[in-house]
């Protein structure tokens, strides 16, 4: 390793294992990273426990000493000069300099002899499990002063905590690397994308029987449709949508839609107000590349005084959800609104209805209507008739009944199919 000995660094302070030590420094990938609260809290603690104005987490690089955290000092790095951190990493134990200006080990150091006028230094090496000393946790004062056993013990314990933090950080980085590697494999990609499209489990919502189905038109090309269901207040929210395109960009937009709608669902919201915010969010996130659009139907359900549910619905480029009444009537609910990500002033509107016990609300995506055989598509009329015939069934049986009808009718899916069925119990 050619960077092991740097021409400007005094050979007397180069450890014997320097090239391996530098490799260890690189492994932690910490040099020139932004400030980190965990390390800043530890230097603040060291400064308080040792009653010094300054505490530093230092990493000794080839020709410089870089500070991961510098409490009480507005300096990010110094040259690798003998006497302080650079010397502290040569041995196992604490490196104590009680009167730096009088101490032959440090009197020539620029920080001591120069304008800063360092008078006191106590440092403990940051030692890896395999014995490499990366740098130090040190405390500094401008005035000379004695140390106590207690301070050295505290500093030693804190140095171990700093090392734990560095290990934790390295594990997290390794995990990220591993994840990135996995993401490169197409198979894993599909699985991850799938998780972004639909919740792992439907929530248990009071008084509501829920079922969902998701059928990609092409197993290898995940993306497109999504749905979500979550509780809010005493009721819940149902979301279904279709984003343009497939793969990672579509999944990113889907994630944005689901997370935005979930976050808004924690506050005071209506479907139209949430879709308006989501529309603005998509427009704001627009880059110079290809524009992306989505269709979404958003539904809010709140218990009413008669054992049923008050329903509000807003639509953004999405077909009407259907209501199946207990007598077999099928109704469309919602007012048509523009695609998401298109109009700056979308003008979404809430439409309302009520669901009595036994009534069923069905949300679906276009793919269901677009399923086709050699001559026809499944279409609205067939969906209405099929749904009416499923009167009296529970949510899961209705979802299965609709999917079976599509499978029986169609020889080919043109697009993904997503389906969300909610029945008032």
């Amino acid at each position, binding site marked *: 390793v050619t960077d092991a000995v740097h021409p400007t660094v005094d050979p007397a302070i180069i450890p014997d294992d320097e090239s391996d030590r530098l490799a260890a420094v690189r492994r932690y990938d910490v040099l020139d990273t932004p400030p980190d609260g965990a390390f800043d809290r530890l230097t603040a603690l060291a400064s308080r426990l040792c009653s010094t104005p300054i505490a530093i987490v230092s990493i000794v690089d080839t020709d410089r000493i870089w500070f991961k955290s510098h409490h009480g000092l507005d300096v990010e790095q110094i040259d690798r000069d003998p006497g302080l951190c650079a010397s502290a990493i040569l041995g196992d134990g604490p490196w104590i300099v009680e009167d730096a200006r009088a101490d032959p080990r440090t009197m020539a150091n620029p920080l001591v002899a120069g304008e800063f006028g360092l008078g006191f230094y106590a440092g403990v090496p940051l030692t890896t499990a395999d014995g490499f000393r990366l740098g130090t946790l040190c405390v500094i004062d401008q005035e000379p002063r004695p140390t106590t056993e207690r301070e050295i013990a505290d500093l030693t314990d804190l140095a171990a905590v700093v090392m734990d933090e560095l290990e934790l950080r390295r594990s997290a980085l390794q995990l990220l690397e591993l994840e990135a590697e996995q993401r490169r494999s197409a198979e894993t990609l599909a699985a991850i994308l799938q998780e972004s499209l639909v919740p792992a489990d439907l929530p248990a919502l009071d008084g509501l029987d829920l079922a969902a189905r998701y059928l990609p038109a092409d197993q290898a090309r995940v993306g497109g449709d999504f749905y979500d269901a979550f509780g809010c207040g005493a009721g819940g929210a149902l979301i279904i949508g*279709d*984003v*343009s*395109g*497939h793969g990672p960009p579509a999944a990113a937009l889907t994630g944005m839609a689901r997370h935005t709608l979930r976050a808004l669902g924690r506050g005071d919201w209506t479907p139209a107000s949430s879709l308006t915010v989501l529309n603005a969010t998509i427009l704001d996130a627009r880059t110079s590349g290809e*524009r*992306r*659009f989505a*269709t979404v139907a958003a539904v809010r359900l709140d218990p009413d005084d008669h054992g049923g549910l008050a329903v509000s619905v807003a*639509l953004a*480029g*999405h*077909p009407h959800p259907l209501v199946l009444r207990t007598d077999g009537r099928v109704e469309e609910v919602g007012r*048509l*609104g*523009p*695609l998401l990500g*298109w109009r700056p002033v979308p003008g979404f509107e809430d439409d309302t209805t009520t669901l009595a016990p036994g009534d069923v609300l069905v949300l679906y995506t*276009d793919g269901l209507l*677009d399923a086709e055989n050699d001559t026809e*598509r499944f*279409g*609205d009329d067939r969906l209405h008739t099929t749904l009416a015939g499923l009167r009296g069934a529970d949510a899961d049986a209705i979802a299965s009944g609709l999917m079976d009808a599509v499978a029986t009718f169609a020889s080919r899916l*043109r*697009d993904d199919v997503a389906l969300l069925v909610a029945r008032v119990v």
Partner: protein
Amino acid sequence: LAESDDILHVDIKPDDVRPTLVISGEIDLVSSARLRAAIDEALALGAASLEFDFSHVSFMDSTGLGILASTSDRAMEAGGSVRVRGASPTVVRLLEVSRLDSVIDVA
């Protein structure tokens, strides 16, 4: 992909005011690049407005809606408009559901 490229064909009929794109086939994710390229080509002729002849479009999905929305915005920014002619009831319904019919003249 060569095979799926065949599912969409676009002819451009030049016109000083409103060139027409005569589209045959299916508009979906696979064929969308070809349609986008044809739209760029037609707009490069200098007119602000476009007409789409959908008489021979057998299928369109949400990708097509996105393309029409973008194209309508581009045309309106240039002071023009987009017109769709000969669309099937299914495509007309899609334009209604997405509210594209509020800015696109569906003839």
